[in-house]
């Protein structure tokens, strides 16, 4: 009912930014997300419906028209749509239109994202992430669900010196805090 107004979206990290001389930290803008579960035989159908090819190789992602599909497991993807800013979730609709067997759950608000960039980005993330983030082992486009300190994150490398850290909303200020410490340490001249 219009007179009671329409709810506005408030991101958990709204206004957060920080970092150091070598690392920039900022909250990512709002996005639509789904957790997508699909059997191998239906991957093609969902790829078509979503307009982005679901990658089937571990630790890889694919992007098309502002939609990114991240391989999380053999039948699991996180699909992020950065153009989706309105209410509702176009990804859910698109998946449903595929007509193929799948499970899509709207997690647009479960996750929030932190953008980590700069020459010290990998070092900052390694303050809490045990994975090898060298370009050789974790090239641009690589993604993985992993551990960051005491919380779980999904890590996506968007450029040589830029990462997207997807984290559950109630863990996001912890993640931001640890990234801030990592960023400070990454700026220390050895």
């Amino acid at each position, binding site marked *: *009912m219009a007179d*009671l*107004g*329409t*709810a*506005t*979206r*408030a*991101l*958990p990290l709204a206004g957060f930014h920080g970092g*150091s001389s070598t690392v920039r930290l900022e909250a990512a803008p*709002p996005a639509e997300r789904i*957790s997508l*579960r699909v059997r191998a035989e239906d991957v093609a159908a969902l790829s078509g419906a979503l307009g982005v090819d679901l990658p089937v190789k571990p630790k890889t992602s694919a992007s098309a028209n502002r939609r990114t599909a991240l391989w999380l497991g053999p*039948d699991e993807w996180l699909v992020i749509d950065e153009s989706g800013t309105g*209410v*509702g*979730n176009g990804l859910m609709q698109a998946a449903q239109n595929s007509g193929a*067997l799948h*499970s*899509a*759950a*709207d*997690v*647009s*608000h*479960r*996750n929030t994202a932190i953008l980590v960039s700069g020459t010290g980005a990998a*070092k900052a993330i*390694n*303050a*809490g*992430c*045990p*994975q*090898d983030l*060298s370009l050789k*082992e974790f090239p641009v486009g690589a993604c993985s669900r992993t551990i960051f*300190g*005491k*919380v779980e994150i999904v890590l996506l490398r968007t450029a040589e010196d830029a990462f997207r850290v997807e984290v*559950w*909303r*109630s*863990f996001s*200020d*912890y993640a931001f*805090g*640890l990234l801030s*410490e*990592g960023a*400070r*340490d990454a*700026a*220390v001249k050895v």
Partner: protein
Amino acid sequence: MSASARDLGAFRIKDAGRHTPARTARFTFDGKTYTAMEGDTVASALLAHGVHLVGRSFKYHRPRGILSAGPEEPNALLDVSRDAGRRQPNVRATVQEVFDGVRIASQNRWPSLKHDVGAFNDLLSPFFAAGFYYKTFMWPKEAWHKLYEPFIRRAAGLGEAPKEEDPDHYTSRYAHCDVLIAGAGVAGLTAALSAAATGVSVFLVDEQPEVGGALHFDAGTTIDGQNGYEWAQAAVARLKAMPNVTVLTRTTVFGYYNHGFLGLVERVTDHLARPGRDLPRERLWQVRAKRVVLATGSIERHMVFANNDRPGIMLASAARTFLNHHGVAVGRQVGVYTAHDSAYEAAFDLKRAGVSIAAIVDCRSHPGDAVLAEARALGIDVLTGHSVINTSGRLRVSSMTVARNGGSNARKIAVDALIVSAGWTPSVHLFSQSRGKLRFDEQNQRFLPDIYAQDCVSVGACNGTDDLSDLIDEAIAAGGGTLALTGENSFEWTGGMIGAAEGAGPDTVVKAFVDFQHDVTAKDIRLAVREGMHSIEHIKRFTTNGMASDQGKLSNMHGLAIAAEMLGRPIPKVGLTTFRAPYTPVTYGTLVGHSRGDLFDPARKTPMHALEAAEGAEFEDVGNWKRAWYFPKRGEDMHAAVNRECRTVRDVAGVFDASTLGKIEVVGPDAAQFLNLLYTNAWDTLKPGKCRYGIMTREDGFVYDDGVVGRLAEDRFHVTTTTGGAPRVLHHMEDYLQTEFPHLKVWLTSTTEQWAVIAVQGPKAREIIQPFVEGIDISNEAFPHMSVAECTVMGVPSRLFRMSFTGELGFEVNVPADYGPAVWKAIWERAESMGACLYGTETMHVLRAEKGYIIVGQDTDGTVTPDDAALGWAVSKKKTDYVGIRGLKRPDLVRDGRKQLVGLLTKSPDVVLEEGGQIVADPNQPKPMTMLGHVTSAYWSENCGRSIALALVAGGRSLVGKTLYVPLKDQTIEVEVTDMVFFDKEGGRIHG
């Protein structure tokens, strides 16, 4: 600067050492100010000023000096402070670098280092033999804890723990590399050059400020025709310039763990006078290395002889380091006592620097010919086949008593320092930590790496490779590359011994120290053997040999040899104590790293947290979550606030944040079938648009979790779990889905945080939310109790549940989390205007208890079945299978007299029971009493106008109406057993 400020110490040798005279730093030791050169360690700086006495030993409080020049130091442990908050006990003077303004103090002495009353213990030492405390202090019984122990505790210990919270910060970083090289001496540097050239990623780690290892003291080494130390600095400069190489100095590899995982601690600021605020004090590196090259070198051993612990007695290599690296002479009239050629070179260097050498006393009859010839050439008096059998000097050695082996022709020789060497012990600590197996090298009396347990190789001195060119070849090979490098030493070294020296044998009673810090002597070790300690571990524990903060780097081999001799068994048959991490002590703060304060453990907050805080909410910790506990108005205490909230919810309505409840989206054609297997109730009968309360057990049949499950569509369920249970329930479900029921077409997704959940409960609940809800009719007829529907709330796609945990008409509005604050604000504004309240978890607990609704984890523990919890109705009798179906049938789970959940009413309505109170039938029975159960929930119920309680009671349901007792600390409370519903027994309100 004034003359005194420029006084760098009377024992500085002009033009010796590698420091820059222009750069000095002032520091204090026990209140007296000294000037040091930048690059000095506290040890070298004090020695430059002729200060040898720096500490007192652990047990006998004997005066002690500086024994070594490195991390193996057992004696010179000092209290080092930058300011009050940055005080560090037990710092090794041989490792701590001097910086301007640092304050140093000696430890374990009172009133002063020179006059320490504790030294009285030394006189009593005949009584304080190893393990004496096991044999006395037993009478009277209480005296140990009340009298003896406090005394012993005060006497023991070394430094004083910090009294203030540490103002410094520490950081931590994970890293990966192809090759990690521990130690940057000749071997480590060579291996690094070799490996780096192949392009692999290399970590080169060394604990000292500069690389070079033994080259710090060994001035006789030439590499590539260059002075060894200079070659090392040039080599590391080349390595630092390579993109694939990381060089870490002042960094110790303290632990070698499973699967190529190593712990490193980098000391970042402890050597700086004015560290920047962003600098961590220390950094923990957690490195996963594909391969490890151990180039950890070896440690010189002291000689074990009578009174070998006086200040001024030190390792020959240490004296050489102080001279060649720091430009400091350890004395003016120096004696040498050795069983190894290396000490001769120390004498040569000192002699050339103008220090007079009293004599080289060599217990061997045949030292190396080359060193002997050189000694003669330099006019140094060498006594072969002789030993030092005693020393004198109270606070510093003043003479050594020398005798021909066998004891004849003893004489005193005046010295102001005595440098000793019994040979070298390979540093196999990290190899051993990696679970490699050692072998004993009979000929050289040392343990060497034998069988490797991980992808790791030892090179150089730690591998027993003494010859320099062999060492270089070995290191090049270990690096995996090729390299043209040659090197030579001025002398070949021979000799070495372990165990007690002349005059300290089994027939003697002298104090010949093996472990300096713990005051363990050769005779203590023999005593242990005499008392039946035949395993080296027993000997270690009985004498505490090797258990001091140096972890036996100097003492272990000597102790082993003395024990072996006493036992008449070869050394390998006596065994070697295990090498444990850390190699040298590591600060807690470093290991903790970032995990402190806010980052110790994530505090999870709901989307509405800030709004609730603004309304004055008090919060409670539930798992990781911060939940609004109650909302006190001005002047209200918890009791008053909760009473008001309880009343208001039932009279008008209340708004509650239920966002923390776990949520799992269960999607797929076989969803209902899956839930049938995971919950005790049946789900295929649940129609879309309806919800149902579900109980989950594990195979053992005990209540595991509960929650309301809504069916949104044939193939989509919205499952809720307890707040604390969410992660384990999902894990439990995934386990069965993936490994037991993989044929089912269904998927699980955690949506706990997708939804902000706003519960509106109470008679006016519908009226409150009505205007916000679009797309469905929420009238009682169209949307009765236990309904669920997707709709729009304030223009946002939402899920609306008609359900209640209060017994009132209730709704739970699920909106996408980012919209939570806006919707909460709007609903609360309207609710408030209608006289409703905000309520927290405490009121929720009271209201549900009034209705007899249980809380899993409070009214149940891991031993309660659904039937025990009066939830038997939720266990399907028809289903042929579900998780728990068999466990529930086990004898003990179906026997009579099990503890059952019932209500309790106190005889006097005003008395509120204590949660956790135990229940008995006869309060006057003798202890130990027979306890029937305990109170699980107890509250003052404003709505009932009396106290209420729930309890688990043996055979409870058969005791309804009976009187039982709850004996508390100060009173015994009489209670009547009742059913579990205290309010609105007919349950009409929920359908309002």
